[in-house]
């Protein structure tokens, strides 16, 4: 009995196997169009849940990849945004330097300031230009705001500048009104000495009002005339009957400048025009605004014609407006 069952069982298995094999071979040798249609039909009907599952999985995978890409882009943008304010500031500063270079008639070289991580940074600056660019000891160093210092020593590719904050720095200077002449040096008054200058040797009879601009006088042959040095902000001391010493707010801060200009070659006797005062800058700004307004005459004409057309429409009943005589009545009725 058992052997008969086994034989039946084996026969059934063989039949199933041969059937499956035949179907597979039929599929293998069927025309391509027919098999594509068959596969398409299966995908649309029985296999549709599996296709849906696979689609979701694929979406999940690509979403993850997209998420990674977006995250990387966001991180890059955040990283760049960190540098945006400093880039803007540097850009603004370079623009100022460019404007100054157009106004200067003397020879100059631009230099990067290589700041040193020390407390004395600001008294001396290491510059990225040297004797091969024409820089020599005692060449003046300026920034768009005013005087920075003077070159102390040079090598072929670099140089060291002594800034106005250095205890040995001196520059002959005069006030813009021309009523006082003196020597500017770093302030030695305790506490605030590091960040301010003093104008010494002003005769006791010459008083200088607060806010007066102090420029280099050109005496001594080191600094050209007319470079802003600072602004008078107060009196430090008076030596009775002899001299007054004034405190100055420096025009340029050597501790924060990233770029400077070193004046080389033949010296211009007066650089005052290269450093226009606040009032001059304001005049220049107003002038440029006036020029822009004049250039905008086309836009003005268009505005005027638009206004005329609007007023015509408002006053013409045929164009949907109310005549001028009706307007007060209309206004009354709305009130």
């Amino acid at each position, binding site marked *: 009995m058992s052997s008969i069952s086994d034989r039946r069982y084996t026969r059934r298995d063989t039949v*199933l*196997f041969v059937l*499956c094999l035949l179907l597979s071979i039929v599929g293998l040798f069927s025309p*391509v169009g027919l098999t594509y249609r068959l596969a398409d039909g299966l995908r649309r009907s029985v*296999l549709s849940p599996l296709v849906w599952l696979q689609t979701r999985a694929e979406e999940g995978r690509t979403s993850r990849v997209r998420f990674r890409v977006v995250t990387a882009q966001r991180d890059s943008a955040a990283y760049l945004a960190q540098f945006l304010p400093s880039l803007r500031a540097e850009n603004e500063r370079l623009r100022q330097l460019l404007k100054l270079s157009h106004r200067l008639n003397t020879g100059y070289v631009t230099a990067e300031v290589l700041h040193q991580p020390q407390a004395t940074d600001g008294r001396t600056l290491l510059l990225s230009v040297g004797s091969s660019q024409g820089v020599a000891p005692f060449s003046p160093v300026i920034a768009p705001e005013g005087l920075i210092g003077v070159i102390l020593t040079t090598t072929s590719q670099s140089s060291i500048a002594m800034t106005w904050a250095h205890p040995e720095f001196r520059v002959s200077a005069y006030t813009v009104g021309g009523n006082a002449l003196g020597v500017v040096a770093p302030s030695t008054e305790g506490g605030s000495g590091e960040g301010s200058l003093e104008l010494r040797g002003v005769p006791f009879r010459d008083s200088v009002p607060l806010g007066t601009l102090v420029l280099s006088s050109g005496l001594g042959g080191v600094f050209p005339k007319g470079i802003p040095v600072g602004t008078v902000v107060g009196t430090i001391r008076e030596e009775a009957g002899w001299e007054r010493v004034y405190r100055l707010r420096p025009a340029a801060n050597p501790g924060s400048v990233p770029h400077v200009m070193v004046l080389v070659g033949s010296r211009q006797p007066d650089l005052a025009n290269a450093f226009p005062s606040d009032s001059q800058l304001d005049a220049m700004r107003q002038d440029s605004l006036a020029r822009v307004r004049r250039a905008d005459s086309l836009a003005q004409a268009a505005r005027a014609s638009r206004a005329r057309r609007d007023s015509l429409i408002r006053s013409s009943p045929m164009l949907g407006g109310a005549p001028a005589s009706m307007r007060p009545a209309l206004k009354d009725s709305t009130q």
Partner: protein
Amino acid sequence: MSAPRATRIQLLLVMLFLLTLQFYLRPRLGSARVSPDFLLIGLMLLAMRSGPGAGAVAGFLIGLIEDSLTPARFGAGALAHTLVGYFAALGRAVFFADNMLVNAGFVAVGLWVRDLLVLMTSGTDRGELITQLTLYSPLQALITAAFALLVLVTFRSWFSIRLDS
């Protein structure tokens, strides 16, 4: 005496689980050439617990699914899986099919043979065939066998049945 109804349902659940893994997890695993073939695991485990006829039918159906979903030559997958399912069920009598490592080995060999048959019947060129059979198929076979072992360990009691007994 046939297997209890509860055990058959448990086996069906495992097969559904493997089907879900094949279509939901496998696309997320990176390279399809070496990621585990969960459908083949299901086929081998089922065939080794049933008769050759059932193994052949299961192989044919799984092959049909793969032929419908992959752009290879239609019928190649059905033929390969039918042969693999049938001979896996027959091979059970020759080897110690209750041993888990033997089961995993069956899965690895089955996958490699399946690949060989599919590649040959699909008319794959010689270079690709050699690369696939000597590099990717053995790798995929090993990974699939490892997953099969994991499934067997996890559902050990559910697989200790003979559907044709």
